[in-house]
């Protein structure tokens, strides 16, 4: 049917369309004005809350992390403790186990002769018995040959695993680079128990290369028979330099060829090391602390040398004579080493037919106790780890307090450990067998070591040559010290060894 659309129909359609459009617009308007901002505000509110929550969460996490870290540390500590306990268990197990000692055969070079040789051989035999697997073979080499042999060995020959050396050789030996560094190993022992001056000897460039094994020192010996003949109390030896002069004057008797005080006036180390005692007593030093220069040309040096010169020329109580007057009964007093106690006593190799005593070396007024020391150090040569370990066991054993007490009793050497010097058993032995060792034991702690420089023997000879000129009255005290200083500095300036 095709009838034409009426005008009314057209208008109605337009109206409806307009209505729809309007309502749509208004709806959109209403929504637009009220709903969206609210929604947006709501959304942003939610977002803020979320951010806050996230902040809280982060803080919480941080807190948690802290707790976790703390826990971690505690766990670490526990682990360490567990490890320590495990180590101790291992150590205990090690100790309980029959000892699995390194098996090695060790050669041990030394120069101890006579009764000392018997003593070291007895101790080594005891060590070998107690340490199955290690066999130490002591080899005696004369004092004069030992250093050249050691140096030749260090230069590339067959080294002994263990050896001893005179303390004055140590500066040469530590410089060979062939000795085992003991710096770590000594933590296993009571290293501080050794006297500090003895410890110094084995140290080179801050590392420890040797341990003290024996020592000795110088104190006063006096002839009680001469004291009695001079009307002096034989139990009252001098304690000061002034008393020494007084007593020496009373004892001196030129008619009989008897002198008050014997000094070492010959050239060589004998003079130097005796003089050093007087120098140290007067508060002086032999070399500067850096060992680069002479330090004896000082007021203390002058005082010490003047004292010697006065004893010879002013008081006329000391002769210019070869050494040995005291032993011959021709000198009332002498300063000599602890080893002479064993030599002079009945049965000793230099037994004397007179009554004698010992005393601490007299000191100058305002001075300090001092003495010089000798002795030996023990060290290990670089070989193989097993042999070095075995050698350390031997060195540790020989220098231990227990072995040292036996050693000192067998040889009459002075203790190298303070604990030995204070040990009841040892002191009881001294009191019953040879109380004349007591001044040496008690005053060992005042002993100085001679300067540890490789040129020492040459310095010592040069020093003694110049000092002797003052003793013979050829030059003044000041000149002698100045000349000696110049020569010693010249030698020290030379090659460093």
């Amino acid at each position: 049917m095709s009838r034409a659309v009426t005008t009314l129909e057209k208008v109605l359609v337009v109206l409806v369309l307009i209505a729809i459009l309007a309502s749509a617009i208004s709806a959109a308007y209403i929504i637009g004005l009220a709903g969206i901002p609210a929604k947006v505000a709501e959304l942003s509110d939610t977002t803020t809350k979320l951010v806050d929550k996230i902040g809280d969460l982060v803080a919480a996490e941080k807190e948690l992390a802290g707790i976790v870290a703390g826990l971690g540390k505690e766990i670490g500590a526990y682990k360490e403790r567990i490890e320590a306990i495990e180590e101790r268990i291992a150590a205990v197990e090690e100790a309980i186990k029959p000892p699995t000692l390194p098996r090695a055969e060790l050669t041990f070079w030394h120069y101890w002769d006579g009764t000392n040789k018997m003593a070291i051989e007895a101790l080594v035999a005891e060590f070998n018995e107690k340490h199955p697997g290690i066999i130490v073979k002591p080899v005696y080499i004369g004092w004069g040959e030992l250093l050249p042999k050691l140096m030749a060995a260090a230069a590339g020959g067959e080294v002994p695993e263990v050896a001893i050396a005179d303390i004055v050789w140590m500066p040469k030996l530590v410089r060979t680079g062939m000795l085992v560094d003991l710096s770590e190993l000594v933590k296993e022992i009571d290293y501080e128990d050794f006297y500090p001056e003895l410890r110094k000897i084995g140290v080179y460039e801050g590392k420890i290369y040797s341990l003290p094994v024996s020592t000795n020192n110088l104190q006063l010996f006096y002839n009680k028979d001469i004291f009695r003949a001079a009307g002096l109390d034989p139990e009252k030896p001098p304690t000061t330099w002034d008393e020494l002069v007084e007593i020496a004057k009373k004892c001196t008797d030129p008619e009989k060829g008897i002198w008050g005080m014997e000094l070492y006036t010959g050239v060589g180390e004998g003079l130097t090391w005796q003089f050093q005692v007087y120098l140290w007593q007067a508060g002086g030093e032999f070399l500067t602390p850096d060992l680069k220069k002479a330090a004896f040309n000082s007021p203390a040096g002058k005082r010490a040398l003047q004292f010697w010169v006065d004893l010879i020329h002013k008081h006329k109580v000391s002769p210019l004579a070869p050494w040995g007057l005291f032993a011959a009964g021709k000198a009332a007093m002498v300063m000599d080493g602890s080893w002479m106690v064993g030599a002079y006593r009945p049965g000793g190799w230099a037994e004397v037919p007179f009554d004698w005593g010992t005393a601490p070396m007299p000191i100058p007024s305002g001075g300090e106790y001092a003495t010089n020391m000798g002795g030996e150090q023990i060290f290990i040569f670089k070989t193989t780890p097993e042999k070095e370990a075995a050698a350390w066991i031997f060195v540790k054993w020989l220098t231990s307090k227990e072995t040292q007490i036996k050693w000192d009793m067998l040889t009459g050497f002075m203790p190298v450990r303070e604990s030995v010097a204070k040990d009841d058993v040892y002191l009881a032995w001294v009191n019953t067998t040879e109380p004349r060792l007591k001044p040496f034991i008690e005053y060992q702690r005042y002993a100085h070591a001679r300067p540890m420089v490789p040129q020492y023997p040459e310095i010592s000879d040069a020093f003694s040559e110049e000092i002797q000129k003052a003793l013979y009255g050829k030059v003044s005290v000041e000149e002698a010290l100045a000349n000696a200083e110049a020569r010693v500095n010249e030698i020290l300036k030379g090659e460093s060894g």
Partner: protein
Amino acid sequence: MNDETKAAVVCIAPSAIIIGIFTIFPIFCSFYLSLTDWDGLSPTINFVGFSNYSELINSEAFWNSIKVTLCYAMGVSIISVILGLILASLINRTTGPLASLYRVIYFIPVVTSFVAAAVVWRSLFSPAGFLSDSFRSIGFSPPNWLADPIWALPALILVGVWNRLGFNTVISLAALQSIPRAYYERAKIDGAGPLSRFFFVTVPLMKPIILLLFVMSIVDAFLIFDLAYVMTGGGPLGATNVVGLLLYKSAFRYYKMGFASAIGVMVFAILLLLTLLQMRLFKFGKEV
């Protein structure tokens, strides 16, 4: 080479080889070492040219030791050769077992260990010793022989002569006995007395032997070491610091092997010079 020469070469060879290894070779080593700074111990040896020699020539101690050693060597050799000759002529006049006894007595010091003898002499000379005690007992105040700068060297010379005399006497005696009797008888007939016979027969005929003994004594005495080492240690004031002692100290106390070798070479040169000089003086070549 004939057989005889071959045999000689074969027989000489062993000792020549031994002397070569233990004497000639070390001499060359010593000369080489004197040009180095070797310390006798370390494996490093640095060549230093003639610096050891220049140090030596400027060393007062070295020239003093040469002087002391020369005094000692001259003292010992002159006294012991002359005394030996006199003793030999005296012994030559004695006959029978007494002659042998004297010979033995004078020879004993030669075969005695010098070090042991030095120790005994040291105690004899000590202020507490026999010699000083004897002086004191007759009212003299004796010097401290070995510690006295004036007496120390004469004391060493005395011991040196004591040690050397026997050897010189025995050798002189052997030489004396080889002089034909006829010369003396002829001299006697010509009217020469005992003294003239000694000076105009014995001495001229003994000249080569006297020279030999003199050279040997000087060389032997120049190498003195043990006596000074034991008795004085070189003191007092360097009065007995003989060159052997200086060499020993340099080598084995200060470990300056290069310097010590230089001393050795110098001593060698001095001894060579002395020997040549003596040969020239005695016109050695012409007499024999």
